[in-house]
């Protein structure tokens, strides 16, 4: 099996790297050589590198290999991981899995994490071959997070074979199609394989700031006191479509979470699409919990363009009880991925929000 190893020749800087062909079984040796030459360049002694997790990324579309790799690079800068990226490529020969190895010390400092990435390019039909390569490259005895960076994975043979050894499966349910259809796939994934693996969803992490902000509003006793009054909810989400829009998966997930937390809201949550200049269709713009009997209301809004969210709570006569501003974290793919690997256990809130 041929492999291309992207390591700098001794003494050269990583930018001057020259791909070199080796076999997959030599990947570890070459990685070691790459670390040593990087250590020589930076003047550190690297007697030991720590590793806490294997992250196997499956990229079913070869054109997206670069963006997947850059998210992995950011993750590796803070988590010492063994990153193995498998890119499905119909152009690749079926009989060979080719590998590139890169060590990136630019993001970490001498005493901080820096990452190595092994990239395998495999023909979609080279399942067992790719699987064997990945198995051989996993860091022993450490958990495996499998990041599937494609559409619905359940029929993908490569996914099925690798999911078997994953402790956590990470997906972005938005790629399964927005709306109910996407969430359906997510539900099936949670039930998949007798629930061996925990599931992480980047789209669920996208609404983490909403969950946090809503929770923060009700940390105040005077706002919490309004809660028994609040019996309905409206969630507005962005759309750029002129025609009727299916409900955004994010809005559905948030509605699921709200219902799980306050069961009386079941069937009392309205999802409204709002045409918005904001480019991120499906994003949540406003959540209003209100009362059918009084002016009580707790509303959290995001202006869309600015980073910050604002919230206000009103009492029975409509008078303002409190108002807040919340900062909103970045929503880059790397950041969302990071949150998914931070916790490897099952996420009961996500599972409850889907039921």
């Amino acid at each position, binding site marked *: 099996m041929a492999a291309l190893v992207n390591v700098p020749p001794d003494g050269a800087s990583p930018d001057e790297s020259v791909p070199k062909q080796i076999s997959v079984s030599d990947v570890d040796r070459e990685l070691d050589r790459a670390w040593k030459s990087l250590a020589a360049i930076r003047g550190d002694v690297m007697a*030991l590198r*720590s590793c806490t997790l294997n992250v196997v990324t499956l990229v079913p579309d070869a054109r997206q290999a670069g963006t997947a790799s850059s998210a992995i690079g950011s993750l590796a800068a803070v988590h010492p991981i063994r990153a193995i990226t498998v890119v499905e490529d119909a152009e690749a020969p079926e009989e060979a899995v080719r590998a590139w190895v890169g060590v990136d010390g630019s993001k970490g400092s001498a005493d901080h*994490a820096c990452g190595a990435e092994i990239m395998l390019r495999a023909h979609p039909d080279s399942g067992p071959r790719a699987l064997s390569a990945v198995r051989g490259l996993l860091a022993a005895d450490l958990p495996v997070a499998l990041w599937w960076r494609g559409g619905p994975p359940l029929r993908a043979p490569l996914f099925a074979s690798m999911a078997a050894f994953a402790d956590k499966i990470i997906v972005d349910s938005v790629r399964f199609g927005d709306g109910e259809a996407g969430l359906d796939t997510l539900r099936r994934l949670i039930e998949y394989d007798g629930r061996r693996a925990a599931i992480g969803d980047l789209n669920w992490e996208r609404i983490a700031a909403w969950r946090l902000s809503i929770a923060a509003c*009700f940390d105040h006793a005077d706002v919490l*006191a309004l809660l028994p009054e609040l019996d309905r909810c409206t969630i507005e989400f962005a759309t750029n479509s002129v025609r009727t829009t299916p409900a955004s998966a994010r809005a559905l997930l948030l509605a699921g979470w709200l219902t799980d*937390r306050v069961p009386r809201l079941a069937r009392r949550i309205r999802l409204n699409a709002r045409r918005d200049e904001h480019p991120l269709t499906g994003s949540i713009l406003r959540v209003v919990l209100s009362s059918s009997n009084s002016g009580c209301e707790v509303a959290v809004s995001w202006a869309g363009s600015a980073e910050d969210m604002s919230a206000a709570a009103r009492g029975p006569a409509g008078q303002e009880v409190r108002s807040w501003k919340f900062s909103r974290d970045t929503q880059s793919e790397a950041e969302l991925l990071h949150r998914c690997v931070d916790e490897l256990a099952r996420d009961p809130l996500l599972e409850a929000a889907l039921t």
Partner: protein
Amino acid sequence: MVATELVNPFRQGLRVDRATEPCQLVIFGASGDLTHRKLLPAIYNLAQAQLLPAAFSVTGFARQAMDDAQFRSLLATAVAESGEVRRRDQQTLEELEQRVHYVSGDFHDPTAYTALKAALERSDADYGTGGNRIFYIATPASLYVDIVEKLHAAGLVAQHGASASFVRVVVEKPFGRNLTSARSLDKELLDYLCEDQVYRIDHYLGKETVQNILVFRFANGIFEPIWNRRYVDNVQITVAESLGIESRGSFYEETGVVRDIIQNHALQLMSLVAMEPPTTFDARDFRDEKIRVIEAIKPLGAASLAQSAVRGQYGPGYVAGESVAGYRQEDGVALDSITPTYAALRFFVDNWRWADVPFYVRSGKRLPKRTSEIAIHFKQAPHLPFRKTQVGELTSNVLALSIQPNEAITLRFGAKVPGPSMRVRSVAMDFGYGAAFGAEESSAYERLILDCMKGDQTLFDRADGVEAAWSLLDPVLAAWDADRAVAFPNYAAGTWGPPEADRLLAQDGRQWRHL
């Protein structure tokens, strides 16, 4: 509608678990160094991480005349200057500033407390803090009792249980100067407070790496079986500082290294290494076990002092390439001062686990570098089967837990030197926390303030713990104070202490680890 019976259903299960009980944090000594360098940045970091209670306010109290706006700008400067602030965010700062107030007054003046009380009641009404108060006393220790007494007289401290709201008092080390003063301080504080209202801070316990000693020992099955006299030859604890006494000459003259470091930080480290596994990590079990270790240390009587304790004071020398003054030349220091700036002590813990295993503890100022570590020296392999091996090169295994400046675990073991002959050399395997967990750790003060808000005393000292430490060290302090005929200075700044410290180990056939 009874709001207090409701639980926020949205908070449950979220990863960010904030301190939910409303409270006011009142800082005595708000214009001081500790507040500026540690407390205000820690409070800001907690706000940034959304860990503060929703109903929260800070009131600074000190002598210096300041209004709210000036104290707020002090907060902004502290945040801007602190190396411990992880993410600077204007919005968080502005929101926090709105909850920050200042009252000026002399701590000895009862009318100042009337003004403070009015300000705290206003804050209760404005922020919904419900009368819950944490009084953080960041002042010279001589003021602690007077402050608590005056707080009591002003009706600001009710003993726990006497009111629906809570009052907690945080006091900084040094906690007393010796056993007698610590006992009388405890007694006086406990006239007005219950023990579970007193939070004695030793910030070492708030450090992630210090807490990791516990995880390392009690969450890993492989170390505990060898953590005893059968396998451990000796334990060395070092708390070394390269700095001198800065501008705190008069403070240090009164304190010295034993009161400043050994009585608290160093003995805390020792108790974490030597303690038995507690049944649970709740405040009572954990502190019981910690205190048991200190109580089990063989007293250093007058007879054994010469073999067990060494003191030192630095003279002029060079640190990091700079020429530095000797201790007696520092501002505020007497020319014939006998205050020790270095101490090395040998302790034995009289129990089954540790009988006859020496614990060597050293700490000093103006040593070659700033480093704190615990090194467990294991016994040599009982038999060396490698004939013609350069046995001299073989050293015992050492497990070093570094606390600062680099948080790491290092294991030293023998490995074969590649080549045709059987040569063995010691290698160090380093595990740096930074390399395993990229996440930035929180500062010790953040953790401790948060724990105090949650009412968790686990990482705070208990009166009997403080007293046990003084009981152990009082004879040393008394003997050293009485014997003024000591030839100080006895080590040059930038060296690892006086030669007697080496002899302390040499008499047992051992030597200090080279750091």
